[in-house]
């Protein structure tokens, strides 16, 4: 740095230190490791200001820019936005946002010649946008912080970049999961736990991830309060990340309000989530793939959606509608949503006959699909699509008439390697004494565990949740075996953004491909 700024700066800085260096300045706390392991109340409030632009009472942090007429508030005014999540600073657009870690803030800055900050100079920088006679960059807002908020921020700045990461210790990284450990789905929960344990044992045998082993912290999703209560209990148990667990309408946050990363959740990604990584495309994306497939064989297919009136059914309907909105040549879909669990096949068939759609997207269960097909006359030969998930592990159980008429959109791989890997997983589960019957969820747990390990390896020896998320966002065509290759990016947290259209072979009773791999552009 010094070389770039030239000797002039050094000389001037030296002069300043000589002239103005007599004043004593507060030292940054020496033993930050201990004092910052757990933040006090003031530092916690300061942390919310720094990262989220949120004050003690939830009020937005406000900063004025330029001549003071334009204002930033809340998250867009948060310090972290420019100065970084660990206070590392940034330089972008030719504008520098300096590092704010205690060791940079409270020591002299060689580049600008500023001495270490004290309370008064910090106040001037934050409120007035100046350090001594020097005006800070035009992008630095002048914040309207009161004295107590400033004290909170000051308390947090003493620990910035030195906080202990939740769930990470010298030898262990704790990962949480809410899986059924009692009740009817207990066997599947046991298979999931065994699949994850098997991956983690394999990694531990190799020496761990940066010498840390992975500890699986489990809560019973069938316990008191159901799956979301189980997830909430996990959030309080200091887990670094979550895997393949139920997910509510809001992303899971820890006690400090920080979102806990979640891999391969069992449910759709909440709209506000920033650290949820889906493996397979959601139903909305599958609906768009159906649309893309139908549009290749017929110019303007008018779709009719028949689905339960629940989150999944609405995702299908909205995905199709969204897909059509981007393609002007397609007619808007119609939809018939039924009360979940009470599907009236005859009424659905009558409605379909009246509408004369070009194609049907069916979102009910395999049994409901069978009933619907039986209620349709043989004359109603419209192409029919459904997500392959309704087949579960048992495509052979599908009504043969439904099998003949229905195309399934399938985001998993379809080849012999996969069946070999599924057999291998079954064998490993059996070796652990776990049930290996219905293993759909165990596959999800295995994929989540392997993706987690890769993310941790890429996040480095001092993993933070933020670094972990950024590391996952660098995955391109990552092979996990039991899924199509995964790719994530800043803008896309869905690992597989394509699918095959498949059918259930009426003779072999297993799924066979009828299309190439079809992809859609992911939109987060």
């Amino acid at each position: 740095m010094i070389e770039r700024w030239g000797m002039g700066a050094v000389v001037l800085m030296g002069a300043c230190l000589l002239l103005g260096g007599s004043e004593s300045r507060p030292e940054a706390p020496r033993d930050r490791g201990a004092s910052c392991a757990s933040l006090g109340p003031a530092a916690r409030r300061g942390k919310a200001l720094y990262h989220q632009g949120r004050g003690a009472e939830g009020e937005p942090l406000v900063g004025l820019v330029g001549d003071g007429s334009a204002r930033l508030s809340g998250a867009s005014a948060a310090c972290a936005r420019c100065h970084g999540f660990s206070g590392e600073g940034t330089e972008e657009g030719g504008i520098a946002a300096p590092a704010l870690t205690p060791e940079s803030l409270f020591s002299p800055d060689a580049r600008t010649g500023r001495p270490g900050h004290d309370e008064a100079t910090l106040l001037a920088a934050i409120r007035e946008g100046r350090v001594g006679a020097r005006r800070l960059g035009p992008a630095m807002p002048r914040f309207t912080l009161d004295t107590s908020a400033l004290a909170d921020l000051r308390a947090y700045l003493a620990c910035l970049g030195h906080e202990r990461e939740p769930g990470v210790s010298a030898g262990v990284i704790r990962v949480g999961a809410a899986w059924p450990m009692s009740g009817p789905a207990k066997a599947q929960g046991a298979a999931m736990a065994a699949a994850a344990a098997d991956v983690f044992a394999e990694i531990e045998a190799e020496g761990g991830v940066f010498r840390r082993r992975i500890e699986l912290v489990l809560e019973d999703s069938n316990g008191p309060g159901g799956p979301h209560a189980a997830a909430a209990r996990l959030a309080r148990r200091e887990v670094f990340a979550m895997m393949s667990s139920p997910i509510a309408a809001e992303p899971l946050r820890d006690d400090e309000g920080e979102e806990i990363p979640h891999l391969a959740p069992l449910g759709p990604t909440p709209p506000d989530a920033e650290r949820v990584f889906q493996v397979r495309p959601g139903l909305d994306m599958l609906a768009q793939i159906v649309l893309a497939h139908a549009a290749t064989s017929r110019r303007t297919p008018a779709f009719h959606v028949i689905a339960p009136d629940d989150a999944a059914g609405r995702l299908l309907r909205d995905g199709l509608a969204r897909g059509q909105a981007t393609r002007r040549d397609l007619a808007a879909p119609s939809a018939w949503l039924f009360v979940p669990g009470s599907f009236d096949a005859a009424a659905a068939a009558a409605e379909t006959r009246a509408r004369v759609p070009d194609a049907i997207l069916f979102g009910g269960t395999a049994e409901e699909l069978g009933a619907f097909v039986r209620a349709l006359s043989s004359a109603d030969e419209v192409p029919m699509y459904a997500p392959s998930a309704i087949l579960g592990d048992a495509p052979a159980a599908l009504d043969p008439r439904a099998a003949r008429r229905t195309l399934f959109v399938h985001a998993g791989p379809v080849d012999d390697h996969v069946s070999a890997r599924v057999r291998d997983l079954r064998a490993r589960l059996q070796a652990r004494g776990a049930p290996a019957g219905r293993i759909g969820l165990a596959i999800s747990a295995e994929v989540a565990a392997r993706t987690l390990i890769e993310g941790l390896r890429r996040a480095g020896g001092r993993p933070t949740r933020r670094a972990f998320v950024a590391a996952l966002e660098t995955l391109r065509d990552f092979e996990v075996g039991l899924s199509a290759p995964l790719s994530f990016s800043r803008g896309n947290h869905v690992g597989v953004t394509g699918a095959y259209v498949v059918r259930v072979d009426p003779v072999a009773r297993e799924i066979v491909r009828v299309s190439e791999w079809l992809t859609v552009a992911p939109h987060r």
Partner: protein
Amino acid sequence: MSMALATHPLRHARALVLVGAALFAAGCEGESKGAPPVPLPPPGADVRVAPLAKVVVPDVELVDQDGQTVLLRDALGPGAFAIQFVFTTCTTICSPMTAVFARLAHDLGDSFGNDIRLVSLTLDPAIDGPEALRRYADQFGRREGWTFLTGRPDRLSRALRALGGDARVKEEHRPLTVIGDGQGKFVLVDGLASPARLRAEIAALRHPAKNTEAP
């Protein structure tokens, strides 16, 4: 980060000399409590405005924050306009720039949306889909008359090149605002200009006579 610096070595060197000189002149008193602060240069002193010649708004289809396909020309409207280049994961200047646009929309009063429109073009179509843009725009209280645009990378990059906002690496982009009068005249505002300054530049471009009469 060093690349960003390397792009504008002169600018930084000059800033440094000024800082150094100010500190030296003040005997570094600014740093000690109680001393009268040295007068600071007014905000916006580093904003430069230059005419932009030969700009042709390309006829490209882009996508707005609501996912609707829109022609760039239509988003700019029949009258005057100001365009900024931002991206939602930007770490420094984009939030202040967008806040300036929000205030500008407010200050323009009745002419906003009618005679004058605002457009924020993303530099990062890979991340800034319509949904990301809408969330970002909502943070700044976007109103009708102010459009955030993304689109296919090739089309977007045609638009950016034509308007002079094309940053080779998005992190190196500068706080630029392009102002057009809707009649084929353009100026480029380089630097984080205040809403008042942008308003004045729009007025000066639309009514040059008034501007030259001013003292």
